Protein backbone atom coordinates (compact mmCIF):
# COMPACT_ATOMS: atom_id res chain seq x y z
CA UNK A 1 0.00 0.00 0.00
CA UNK A 2 2.72 2.42 0.87
CA UNK A 3 4.91 2.45 -2.22
CA UNK A 4 2.32 4.49 -4.07
CA UNK A 5 1.72 6.81 -1.11
CA UNK A 6 5.41 7.49 -0.88
CA UNK A 7 5.25 8.82 -4.43
CA UNK A 8 2.10 10.86 -4.09
CA UNK A 9 1.70 11.90 -0.44
CA UNK A 10 3.79 15.02 -0.85
CA UNK A 11 2.89 15.81 -4.44
CA UNK A 12 0.90 18.98 -5.02
CA UNK A 13 2.31 20.44 -1.81
CA UNK A 14 4.52 22.44 -4.16
CA UNK A 15 5.68 25.94 -3.68
CA UNK A 16 2.73 27.80 -5.19
CA UNK A 17 4.06 31.28 -4.91
CA UNK A 18 6.46 33.65 -6.49
CA UNK A 19 5.92 36.20 -9.21
CA UNK A 20 7.78 34.22 -11.87
CA UNK A 21 5.57 31.21 -11.25
CA UNK A 22 2.27 33.05 -11.58
CA UNK A 23 3.53 34.98 -14.58
CA UNK A 24 4.27 31.62 -16.19
CA UNK A 25 0.91 30.06 -15.25
CA UNK A 26 -1.05 33.00 -16.68
CA UNK A 27 1.27 33.04 -19.71
CA UNK A 28 0.36 29.40 -20.36
CA UNK A 29 -3.35 29.90 -19.81
CA UNK A 30 -3.34 32.88 -22.19
CA UNK A 31 -1.31 30.86 -24.70
CA UNK A 32 -3.76 27.95 -24.69
CA UNK A 33 -6.70 30.36 -25.05
CA UNK A 34 -4.96 31.99 -28.01
CA UNK A 35 -4.38 28.62 -29.73
CA UNK A 36 -8.13 27.99 -29.67
CA UNK A 37 -8.85 31.53 -30.77
CA UNK A 38 -6.41 31.20 -33.69
CA UNK A 39 -8.42 28.34 -35.20
CA UNK A 40 -11.70 30.14 -34.57
CA UNK A 41 -10.22 33.21 -36.27
CA UNK A 42 -9.08 31.25 -39.33
CA UNK A 43 -12.58 29.77 -39.50
CA UNK A 44 -14.30 33.16 -39.32
CA UNK A 45 -12.06 34.80 -41.91
CA UNK A 46 -12.49 31.87 -44.29
CA UNK A 47 -16.27 32.32 -44.14
CA UNK A 48 -15.89 35.03 -46.80
CA UNK A 49 -14.70 32.49 -49.33
CA UNK A 50 -16.77 29.65 -47.92
CA UNK A 51 -20.15 31.37 -47.89
CA UNK A 52 -19.60 34.78 -49.49
CA UNK A 53 -19.74 38.37 -48.28
CA UNK A 54 -23.12 37.96 -46.72
CA UNK A 55 -22.13 35.05 -44.46
CA UNK A 56 -19.14 36.96 -43.19
CA UNK A 57 -21.12 40.11 -42.48
CA UNK A 58 -23.74 38.08 -40.59
CA UNK A 59 -21.03 36.63 -38.35
CA UNK A 60 -19.60 40.11 -37.83
CA UNK A 61 -23.02 41.38 -36.76
CA UNK A 62 -22.91 38.88 -33.89
CA UNK A 63 -19.50 40.20 -32.89
CA UNK A 64 -20.99 43.67 -32.43
CA UNK A 65 -23.16 42.39 -29.57
CA UNK A 66 -22.06 43.65 -26.17
CA UNK A 67 -21.06 40.23 -24.84
CA UNK A 68 -18.75 39.64 -27.79
CA UNK A 69 -17.18 43.07 -27.51
CA UNK A 70 -16.36 42.27 -23.88
CA UNK A 71 -15.02 38.84 -24.86
CA UNK A 72 -12.94 40.60 -27.49
CA UNK A 73 -11.53 42.78 -24.73
CA UNK A 74 -10.61 39.65 -22.76
CA UNK A 75 -8.86 38.40 -25.88
CA UNK A 76 -6.96 41.66 -26.20
CA UNK A 77 -5.76 41.21 -22.62
CA UNK A 78 -4.66 37.64 -23.37
CA UNK A 79 -2.69 38.87 -26.39
CA UNK A 80 -1.13 41.75 -24.47
CA UNK A 81 -0.22 39.64 -21.47
CA UNK A 82 1.18 36.79 -23.53
CA UNK A 83 3.00 39.15 -25.88
CA UNK A 84 4.57 41.41 -23.30
CA UNK A 85 5.47 38.64 -20.89
CA UNK A 86 6.90 36.99 -24.00
CA UNK A 87 9.10 40.06 -24.56
CA UNK A 88 10.44 39.56 -21.04
CA UNK A 89 11.11 35.88 -21.71
CA UNK A 90 12.93 36.59 -24.98
CA UNK A 91 15.05 39.17 -23.15
CA UNK A 92 15.86 36.58 -20.49
CA UNK A 93 16.77 34.11 -23.25
CA UNK A 94 19.23 36.68 -24.55
CA UNK A 95 20.70 36.87 -21.06
CA UNK A 96 19.30 40.31 -20.34
CA UNK A 97 17.91 41.10 -16.92
CA UNK A 98 17.63 37.59 -15.47
CA UNK A 99 18.46 38.94 -12.03
CA UNK A 100 15.95 41.78 -12.52
CA UNK A 101 13.15 39.78 -14.05
CA UNK A 102 10.57 41.02 -11.56
CA UNK A 103 11.18 44.66 -12.39
CA UNK A 104 11.06 43.67 -16.06
CA UNK A 105 7.74 41.93 -15.50
CA UNK A 106 6.17 45.02 -13.99
CA UNK A 107 7.60 47.24 -16.72
CA UNK A 108 6.10 44.96 -19.38
CA UNK A 109 2.80 44.88 -17.50
CA UNK A 110 2.78 48.67 -17.34
CA UNK A 111 3.03 48.75 -21.13
CA UNK A 112 0.29 46.11 -21.36
CA UNK A 113 -2.03 48.09 -19.07
CA UNK A 114 -1.53 51.29 -21.06
CA UNK A 115 -2.31 49.48 -24.33
CA UNK A 116 -5.25 47.73 -22.72
CA UNK A 117 -6.66 51.00 -21.42
CA UNK A 118 -6.70 52.27 -24.99
CA UNK A 119 -8.54 49.20 -26.29
CA UNK A 120 -10.93 49.23 -23.33
CA UNK A 121 -11.75 52.88 -23.99
CA UNK A 122 -12.51 52.14 -27.66
CA UNK A 123 -14.58 49.08 -26.78
CA UNK A 124 -16.64 50.87 -24.13
CA UNK A 125 -17.23 53.76 -26.52
CA UNK A 126 -18.34 51.28 -29.14
CA UNK A 127 -20.79 49.66 -26.71
CA UNK A 128 -22.14 53.08 -25.69
CA UNK A 129 -22.60 54.18 -29.33
CA UNK A 130 -23.76 51.10 -31.14
CA UNK A 131 -24.21 48.35 -28.63
CA UNK A 132 -27.68 47.07 -28.23
CA UNK A 133 -28.49 43.57 -27.17
CA UNK A 134 -26.24 41.46 -24.99
CA UNK A 135 -26.51 38.55 -27.36
Amino acid at each position, binding site marked *: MSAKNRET*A*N*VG*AGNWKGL*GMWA*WILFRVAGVVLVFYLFAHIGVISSARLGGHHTMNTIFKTFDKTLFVLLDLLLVWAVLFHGLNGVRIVLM*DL*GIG*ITRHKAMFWACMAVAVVCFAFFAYSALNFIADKGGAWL
Partner: protein
Amino acid sequence: MPVATFHIKRFDPDNDDMPRYDEFSVPYEASLTVLDGLFYVQEHFDGSLSFRYCCRAAVCGSCAMYINGRYRLACQTNVRHLDGDVITVEAMPHMPLVKDLVCDMTDFFAKYEYIEPWLMRNSQDPAKEIGQTPEERKKLDMPIDCILCGACYSTCPSVWGEGNYIGPAALLKAYRFEVDSRDEARKQRLAHFDNEHGAYRCHTITNCVEACPKELNPTEGIQWLKRAAVRRRLFGRLK
Protein backbone atom coordinates in the same frame (compact mmCIF):
# COMPACT_ATOMS: atom_id res chain seq x y z
CA MET B 1 13.45 30.60 28.60
CA PRO B 2 11.29 31.25 25.50
CA VAL B 3 9.55 28.28 23.95
CA ALA B 4 9.12 27.62 20.23
CA THR B 5 6.31 25.46 18.91
CA PHE B 6 7.60 23.07 16.26
CA HIS B 7 4.85 22.13 13.86
CA ILE B 8 6.35 19.15 12.05
CA LYS B 9 4.95 17.36 9.02
CA ARG B 10 5.09 13.64 9.69
CA PHE B 11 4.64 10.75 7.33
CA ASP B 12 5.14 7.08 8.05
CA PRO B 13 4.74 5.12 4.82
CA ASP B 14 3.95 1.90 6.72
CA ASN B 15 0.97 3.32 8.58
CA ASP B 16 -0.12 6.64 7.09
CA ASP B 17 -2.06 7.32 3.93
CA MET B 18 -1.39 11.02 4.08
CA PRO B 19 1.04 13.18 6.04
CA ARG B 20 -0.04 14.62 9.39
CA TYR B 21 1.29 17.42 11.59
CA ASP B 22 2.68 16.90 15.10
CA GLU B 23 3.33 19.70 17.57
CA PHE B 24 6.25 19.90 19.99
CA SER B 25 7.34 22.63 22.40
CA VAL B 26 11.04 23.33 22.31
CA PRO B 27 12.64 25.72 24.83
CA TYR B 28 15.41 27.73 23.23
CA GLU B 29 18.26 30.08 23.86
CA ALA B 30 20.00 32.45 21.50
CA SER B 31 21.73 29.99 19.22
CA LEU B 32 19.12 27.28 18.60
CA THR B 33 18.86 26.35 14.94
CA VAL B 34 15.92 24.47 13.47
CA LEU B 35 18.18 21.42 13.21
CA ASP B 36 18.99 21.69 16.93
CA GLY B 37 15.26 21.91 17.57
CA LEU B 38 14.70 18.69 15.62
CA PHE B 39 17.38 16.97 17.71
CA TYR B 40 15.65 18.21 20.85
CA VAL B 41 12.34 16.74 19.65
CA GLN B 42 14.03 13.46 18.81
CA GLU B 43 15.72 13.24 22.21
CA HIS B 44 12.85 14.39 24.40
CA PHE B 45 9.56 13.60 22.68
CA ASP B 46 9.69 11.23 19.74
CA GLY B 47 12.73 9.15 18.84
CA SER B 48 11.11 8.07 15.58
CA LEU B 49 11.31 11.52 14.00
CA SER B 50 13.36 11.15 10.79
CA PHE B 51 15.39 13.82 9.05
CA ARG B 52 18.65 14.11 7.13
CA TYR B 53 21.62 16.11 8.32
CA CYS B 54 25.35 15.93 8.20
CA CYS B 55 27.75 18.86 8.30
CA ARG B 56 25.70 21.38 10.35
CA ALA B 57 27.55 24.17 8.53
CA ALA B 58 25.46 24.72 5.36
CA VAL B 59 27.89 23.00 3.01
CA CYS B 60 26.64 19.43 2.65
CA GLY B 61 23.09 20.16 1.46
CA SER B 62 21.51 17.30 3.44
CA CYS B 63 19.10 19.24 5.62
CA ALA B 64 17.19 21.32 3.06
CA MET B 65 13.60 21.56 4.29
CA TYR B 66 10.53 23.72 3.84
CA ILE B 67 10.56 25.89 6.94
CA ASN B 68 7.85 28.50 7.49
CA GLY B 69 6.97 28.42 3.81
CA ARG B 70 10.47 28.82 2.46
CA TYR B 71 13.24 26.49 1.38
CA ARG B 72 15.95 26.69 4.01
CA LEU B 73 18.82 24.65 5.35
CA ALA B 74 17.73 23.59 8.85
CA CYS B 75 21.29 23.92 10.13
CA GLN B 76 21.73 27.55 9.14
CA THR B 77 18.25 28.72 10.13
CA ASN B 78 18.29 30.31 13.56
CA VAL B 79 14.97 29.98 15.35
CA ARG B 80 15.26 33.55 16.59
CA HIS B 81 15.50 34.88 13.05
CA LEU B 82 12.15 33.36 12.06
CA ASP B 83 8.99 35.38 12.53
CA GLY B 84 7.15 34.31 15.64
CA ASP B 85 7.57 31.24 17.81
CA VAL B 86 5.56 28.83 15.69
CA ILE B 87 7.84 27.01 13.29
CA THR B 88 6.42 24.83 10.56
CA VAL B 89 8.90 22.25 9.34
CA GLU B 90 8.00 20.21 6.29
CA ALA B 91 9.80 17.94 3.87
CA MET B 92 10.62 19.61 0.56
CA PRO B 93 7.29 19.88 -1.25
CA HIS B 94 6.48 17.74 -4.22
CA MET B 95 9.22 15.16 -3.64
CA PRO B 96 8.44 11.50 -2.97
CA LEU B 97 8.60 10.91 0.79
CA VAL B 98 10.70 8.26 2.47
CA LYS B 99 9.65 9.15 6.01
CA ASP B 100 8.80 12.37 7.84
CA LEU B 101 11.24 15.03 6.60
CA VAL B 102 13.27 12.67 4.44
CA CYS B 103 12.66 12.89 0.68
CA ASP B 104 13.56 10.35 -1.94
CA MET B 105 16.46 11.92 -3.87
CA THR B 106 17.10 8.94 -6.19
CA ASP B 107 15.97 10.66 -9.39
CA PHE B 108 17.69 13.88 -8.43
CA PHE B 109 21.08 12.22 -8.12
CA ALA B 110 20.58 9.96 -11.13
CA LYS B 111 20.00 13.05 -13.24
CA TYR B 112 22.95 14.80 -11.63
CA GLU B 113 25.16 11.88 -12.57
CA TYR B 114 23.81 11.97 -16.12
CA ILE B 115 25.61 15.23 -16.90
CA GLU B 116 28.94 13.62 -15.91
CA PRO B 117 29.84 16.13 -13.23
CA TRP B 118 33.59 15.80 -13.36
CA LEU B 119 36.40 17.44 -15.30
CA MET B 120 37.01 15.78 -18.68
CA ARG B 121 40.20 16.40 -20.67
CA ASN B 122 41.73 15.12 -23.88
CA SER B 123 45.07 16.90 -23.92
CA GLN B 124 48.14 15.98 -21.96
CA ASP B 125 48.00 17.28 -18.41
CA PRO B 126 50.73 19.79 -17.57
CA ALA B 127 53.45 18.78 -15.14
CA LYS B 128 51.99 20.86 -12.33
CA GLU B 129 48.38 22.02 -11.82
CA ILE B 130 46.23 23.23 -14.72
CA GLY B 131 46.45 26.99 -14.63
CA GLN B 132 43.50 29.38 -14.73
CA THR B 133 43.47 33.15 -14.94
CA PRO B 134 41.48 35.04 -12.29
CA GLU B 135 38.91 35.91 -15.00
CA GLU B 136 38.48 32.26 -15.92
CA ARG B 137 38.08 31.32 -12.29
CA LYS B 138 35.57 34.10 -11.71
CA LYS B 139 33.14 32.43 -14.13
CA LEU B 140 32.90 29.50 -11.74
CA ASP B 141 32.10 31.58 -8.66
CA MET B 142 28.34 31.29 -8.88
CA PRO B 143 27.71 27.70 -10.08
CA ILE B 144 30.47 26.15 -7.96
CA ASP B 145 28.63 27.06 -4.74
CA CYS B 146 25.83 24.57 -5.40
CA ILE B 147 25.60 22.05 -2.55
CA LEU B 148 23.02 19.76 -4.22
CA CYS B 149 20.37 20.22 -1.54
CA GLY B 150 17.58 19.72 -4.11
CA ALA B 151 15.52 22.81 -3.21
CA CYS B 152 15.49 24.05 -6.83
CA TYR B 153 14.53 20.60 -8.08
CA SER B 154 11.68 20.38 -5.59
CA THR B 155 10.25 23.80 -6.47
CA CYS B 156 10.49 23.62 -10.28
CA PRO B 157 7.09 23.25 -12.00
CA SER B 158 8.83 21.71 -15.01
CA VAL B 159 10.06 18.93 -12.72
CA TRP B 160 6.51 18.49 -11.39
CA GLY B 161 5.44 17.57 -14.93
CA GLU B 162 5.97 14.16 -16.49
CA GLY B 163 9.09 13.67 -14.39
CA ASN B 164 11.95 13.28 -16.84
CA TYR B 165 13.18 16.88 -16.87
CA ILE B 166 16.79 16.83 -15.76
CA GLY B 167 16.19 19.75 -13.42
CA PRO B 168 17.86 23.03 -12.44
CA ALA B 169 20.61 21.59 -10.21
CA ALA B 170 21.97 19.21 -12.85
CA LEU B 171 21.80 21.93 -15.52
CA LEU B 172 23.59 24.39 -13.25
CA LYS B 173 26.31 21.78 -12.84
CA ALA B 174 26.43 21.30 -16.63
CA TYR B 175 26.89 25.07 -16.89
CA ARG B 176 29.64 24.94 -14.27
CA PHE B 177 31.68 22.57 -16.47
CA GLU B 178 30.76 24.41 -19.68
CA VAL B 179 32.32 27.64 -18.43
CA ASP B 180 35.33 25.90 -16.91
CA SER B 181 38.38 26.74 -19.03
CA ARG B 182 40.01 23.43 -18.07
CA ASP B 183 37.21 21.21 -19.33
CA GLU B 184 37.58 19.88 -22.88
CA ALA B 185 34.53 17.68 -23.40
CA ARG B 186 32.47 20.26 -25.28
CA LYS B 187 30.85 17.87 -27.76
CA GLN B 188 30.12 15.25 -25.17
CA ARG B 189 28.54 17.81 -22.85
CA LEU B 190 26.36 19.36 -25.55
CA ALA B 191 24.27 16.17 -25.66
CA HIS B 192 23.52 16.45 -21.94
CA PHE B 193 21.73 19.76 -22.05
CA ASP B 194 20.81 20.17 -25.74
CA ASN B 195 17.94 17.85 -25.01
CA GLU B 196 14.14 17.96 -25.05
CA HIS B 197 14.28 17.02 -21.37
CA GLY B 198 17.29 19.26 -20.80
CA ALA B 199 17.70 23.02 -21.03
CA TYR B 200 14.68 23.53 -23.33
CA ARG B 201 12.31 22.16 -20.69
CA CYS B 202 13.17 25.23 -18.59
CA HIS B 203 10.49 27.91 -19.07
CA THR B 204 12.33 30.61 -17.09
CA ILE B 205 9.86 30.37 -14.23
CA THR B 206 12.67 31.32 -11.78
CA ASN B 207 11.23 29.37 -8.84
CA CYS B 208 14.69 27.84 -8.51
CA VAL B 209 16.21 31.27 -7.97
CA GLU B 210 13.69 32.01 -5.22
CA ALA B 211 14.25 28.64 -3.56
CA CYS B 212 18.05 28.34 -3.57
CA PRO B 213 19.31 28.58 0.05
CA LYS B 214 22.74 29.51 -1.29
CA GLU B 215 21.22 32.34 -3.34
CA LEU B 216 22.48 31.01 -6.66
CA ASN B 217 20.84 31.64 -10.01
CA PRO B 218 20.26 28.36 -11.88
CA THR B 219 18.09 30.15 -14.46
CA GLU B 220 21.02 32.27 -15.55
CA GLY B 221 23.11 29.15 -16.11
CA ILE B 222 20.35 27.34 -18.00
CA GLN B 223 19.75 30.34 -20.27
CA TRP B 224 23.48 30.43 -20.98
CA LEU B 225 23.34 26.74 -21.95
CA LYS B 226 20.51 27.38 -24.43
CA ARG B 227 22.54 30.10 -26.10
CA ALA B 228 25.64 27.90 -26.01
CA ALA B 229 23.72 25.18 -27.87
CA VAL B 230 22.74 27.71 -30.56
CA ARG B 231 26.28 29.07 -30.83
CA ARG B 232 27.70 25.61 -31.14
CA ARG B 233 25.19 24.06 -33.49
CA LEU B 234 24.69 27.06 -35.77
CA PHE B 235 28.12 28.66 -35.75
CA GLY B 236 30.32 25.74 -34.71
CA ARG B 237 31.83 27.70 -31.87
CA LEU B 238 33.08 25.58 -29.04
CA LYS B 239 33.26 28.34 -26.44
